[in-house]
C-alpha cells in the first residue's frame, strides 16, 4: 500500500490532442484520488474526456503534464517497462464491447486474464471467479452462446482473476438491457467487496449510481465533484 493509502492519484493532469481545427484540450489540470475498495463513477457528456482519463489512469496513454500515481509510484514520466509492470500488477480492464476471444470458452477467456498478466494458470482461481460471478454453469460456453450480460460478466471475470488493485471499466453497461445492467452493477459492488479492489468506471448509465461511492462529473477538462 502507498504511503497515502491511495490506489490511484492523478494530480494536475493535462492532455491535448492536435485536431485539424487546432489544439483540443481534453483534460486540464485534472485531479482524482481513488482509495482501495472504492467505486468511483466518472460521468460527463460525449467527448468530455472520460475515455482519455481511463487511458491515462491505465498507463495506456501518457499525459502531457501532471502526475499519475498508482500505489504511490509516479508513472507518467516512468519508462515503458515500469509502466507495463505496474499496469500488469495493479490494473484490470473491462471494455464497452467486451473484447472476448470468440474462439475461447468463458473459462478460457478468464484464464487468458492470468496468462496476459504473466501469472500462473490457476484453474481453481478461475473457477472461483466464475462461480462468484454466477457463471459456473456457463464456463464451457463460447461467447456467441452467451447473452450480453453474461459476456460482460466474463469480461469482469477476466479482469478480476489477476486480482488487480484497480479495475478500469469503460461504459460496462452500455451494451446491456436494463435487467442485465442492474445485475452487472450488483456484481461490480459484490466483486469490489470480495476482492477489495477499487473501480474507476466511465459511464453515462445512471443505474450505476446506486453502487458508486462517488460520482465525478467532468466539466471543461476538470472534475466538478
Amino acid at each position, binding site marked *: 500500500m502507498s504511503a497515502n493509502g491511495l490506489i490511484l492519484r492523478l494530480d494536475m493532469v493535462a492532455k491535448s490532442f492536435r485536431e485539424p481545427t487546432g489544439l483540443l484540450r481534453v483534460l486540464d489540470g485534472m485531479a482524482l484520488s481513488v482509495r482501495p475498495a472504492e467505486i468511483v463513477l466518472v460521468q460527463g457528456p460525449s467527448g468530455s474526456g472520460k475515455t482519455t482519463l481511463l487511458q491515462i489512469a491505465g498507463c495506456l496513454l501518457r499525459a502531457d503534464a501532471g502526475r499519475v500515481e498508482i500505489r504511490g509510484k509516479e508513472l507518467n514520466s516512468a519508462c515503458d517497462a515500469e509502466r507495463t509492470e505496474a499496469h*500488469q500488477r495493479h490494473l484490470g*480492464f473491462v471494455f464497452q464491447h467486451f473484447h472476448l476471444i470468440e474462439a475461447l470458452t468463458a473459462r478460457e477467456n478468464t484464464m487468458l486474464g492470468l496468462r496476459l498478466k504473466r501469472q500462473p494458470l490457476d484453474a481453481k482461481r478461475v473457477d472461483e471467479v466464475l462461480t462468484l460471478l454466477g457463471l459456473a454453469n456457463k464456463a464451457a460456453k463460447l461467447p456467441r452462446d452467451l447473452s450480453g450480460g453474461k459476456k460482460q460478466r466474463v469480461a469482469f471475470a477476466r479482469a478480476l482473476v489477476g486480482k488487480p488493485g484497480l479495475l478500469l471499466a469503460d461504459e460496462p453497461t452500455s451494451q446491456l438491457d436494463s435487467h442485465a445492467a442492474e445485475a452487472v452493477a450488483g456484481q461490480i459492488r459484490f466483486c469490489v467487496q470480495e476482492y477489495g479492489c477499487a473501480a474507476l468506471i466511465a459511464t453515462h448509465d445512471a443505474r450505476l449510481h446506486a453502487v458508486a461511492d462517488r460520482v465525478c462529473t467532468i466539466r471543461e477538462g476538470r472534475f466538478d465533484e
Partner: protein
Amino acid sequence: MGVVVGVAMTLFLVLLQSGFYFGFRRDITVVGDSFKADLWISQRAFLAFDYVAHFDDLSCLQALSDADVSHAMPVVVEWSRMRRLPDGAVDDGQIIGLDLNSGVKVDLGTDRELDAASLLAVPGNVLVDEKHLPRLGLSKFGEPGVEIRGLNANVVGVMRGKKLFSTACLVATDLDNARRFLGLKANQITFVAVKCRQGADLRTVRSRLQARLPEQRIWTAAEFHDLTQDYWVKLTGIGPVLLLSAGLAALVGFLTVFLTFSHLTAEKLPVYAAMKAMGASTAELSAVVLVQIAAVFGLGCLLAVGGVLLTLSALASTTISVVLTPGTAAAGVGFMALCSLAAGLRALGKLAKVEPAEAFRT
C-alpha cells in the same frame, strides 16, 4: 469457416483454370506427339499440324533413301465434315491417315490386343477418340457409324487419351482409307514422319534431306511440336484467352486471399488492442495471427484439392481437358502460400500499429 471457403474457392479456381490452359496446350499437339519420329517433312508453307498443304509422296521415298533414315511414314491430315448415321447430325472431324506398317511407331492409345494396322487396312474402318464416342451414339463397334463425305466409316475401336482441343472428332485410319474419305489423289500426303537410325546426327540428316527436298521443309520433332503449339497458343486468340483466364484467376485469387486475410485481421483489431491493453506483446499477437492464417490456408488447401479431385473425376468422361500435374498443383498452392504470406505481413504491419489505448474507443 467463410474465410476458409473463400481461400478454397480461390485456389480451386486457380488450379482449374491452369488445368484448362495446360489441357489445351496438351491437346493441340497430342496427335503429332504420338509419333515416335525424329524429323518431320512438311510443305514449305507450314503453319501448324492442323493447317497444311499436301504434296507428293515421292519425298517419303527420297527420305528413305538416306542412309541414316531407318523408317519413314507418309501421313495424311485434313479436316472434314462428318454425318452421324444414328441421328443424321453433322459433326466435324480431323482425319488422320497413317501407314502403320512403315516402321515408325505411333501411340494411338488403343487396346494392346487390337491389331490396328490390320484392322485399319480394311476399307472404311476407322478409330475415333474415346471421349467422342458417346456423341456418335454407336451401340457397338464394327458397323457404319459415321459418314465422311458420303462414304460410310466403320468405327472399330477407340483411342484413349487422344483428343482434339476443339469439339471435333479425331478419326484415325489407314492412309488409303484417309485418301478415299478426303478425296485425295493416291500419291498425296501431308507429312512424312521420319525415324533415323540410332546414333545418327539429326542435324546432318536434316541438312541432307533439306538439300534433297528443296520444296519441302524439314523439322525436328521438337520444332514441329513448338510450331503447332505457338500457332495456337500465341497466334490465335484461343491460347491468350485461356492464359488470360488463368492469369485473371491468379489475380482474383491474390486479391481475394489478400483482402480476406486483411479483413480477418482488421475486424479483430479492437480485440488485439484490448489484448495489448491487458498485457499481450505484439510478438504474441503476431504469432496468433500467423497461426490463424496458416490454419485457414491449410484448411482452404485441403478443401480446394478435394474439390479439384472431384471435378477432375467428373470431367474425366467429358471432352473437357484438364491437365493438372503435381508440379502445377504445387505451383498453385505455392502461389497461394505467397499470397497468404503477403497478407500475413500486411496484417502484422497493422497489428504493430495498434495502440492499446484504442481498446477503450472501439
